[in-house]
């Protein structure tokens, strides 16, 4: 479905607050190498920070895969956040601004979606959640 070539890939486990910092630093490195503008780097790293925290807090931990990708002559950064947590029962609700099942502001998922170009959310009860995002170089 994503239909892009992967040029370089890295996996970061997300099992502690430290790992959330490490995940966003990894995404920042890829965004810089890919040549994203400063604003786009900032948007992507911020989205990654929100999603990595969700993986830890709501998914009970998991991992992030970050990759440099190419599609139809464009280069970009792709990041996938996966957990084997309880899943999200109502995806539409989870993507609503201000809705939270925890103690957050409810801006993590909905905000992250606005900050990236491609956003894909897949979740099943008792199986886990996978969120994929891509930011393309302009």
């Amino acid at each position, binding site marked *: 479905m994503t239909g892009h070539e992967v040029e370089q890939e890295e996996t970061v486990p997300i099992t502690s*607050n*430290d790992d*959330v*910092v490490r995940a*966003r*630093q990894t995404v*920042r490195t890829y965004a810089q190498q890919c040549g994203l503008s*400063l*604003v786009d*780097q*900032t*948007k992507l*790293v*911020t989205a990654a*920070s*929100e999603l990595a*925290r969700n993986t830890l807090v709501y998914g009970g931990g998991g991992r992030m895969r970050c990759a440099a990708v190419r599609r139809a002559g464009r280069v970009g950064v792709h990041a996938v956040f996966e957990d084997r947590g309880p899943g999200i029962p109502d995806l539409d609700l989870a993507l609503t*601004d201000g809705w939270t099942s925890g103690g*957050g*502001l409810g*801006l*993590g998922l*909905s*905000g*992250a979606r*606005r*900050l990236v170009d491609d956003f894909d959310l897949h979740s099943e009860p008792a199986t886990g959640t996978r969120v994929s995002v891509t930011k393309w170089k302009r």
Partner: protein
Amino acid sequence: MSDRVPILRIGQVLLVSIQIDLEDQTVLDLQDDLAERIVATGAGGVVIDITALEIVDSFVGRMLANTAAISRMLDAETVVVGMRPAVAITLVELGLSLGGVRTALTLDKGLALLERDRTARTARP
């Protein structure tokens, strides 16, 4: 044990300069430490310098908003200084415009803002 962000006191003002990529527990500790230091020192102002921060996500954004609200209840005013343009653009798009947080572009301007406040307060009958 996570690291703690140092809080400096200059006269009536507490100054925090965030220099590293913060993990969430450090962010929460800073919020608590600031509340305690405001009361312990009777400071009238807090300046949080985020010049070095490459991103502010919803967690750090919430800490800034909470700290501004908490300090106001403790009779101190908070000013956030040094926000990068890309950070401002991203925060607004994320959905956090930090309405209750006062900002200044530089540390100098932030301190001047607090000084003006203090003068206005003491001038009142």
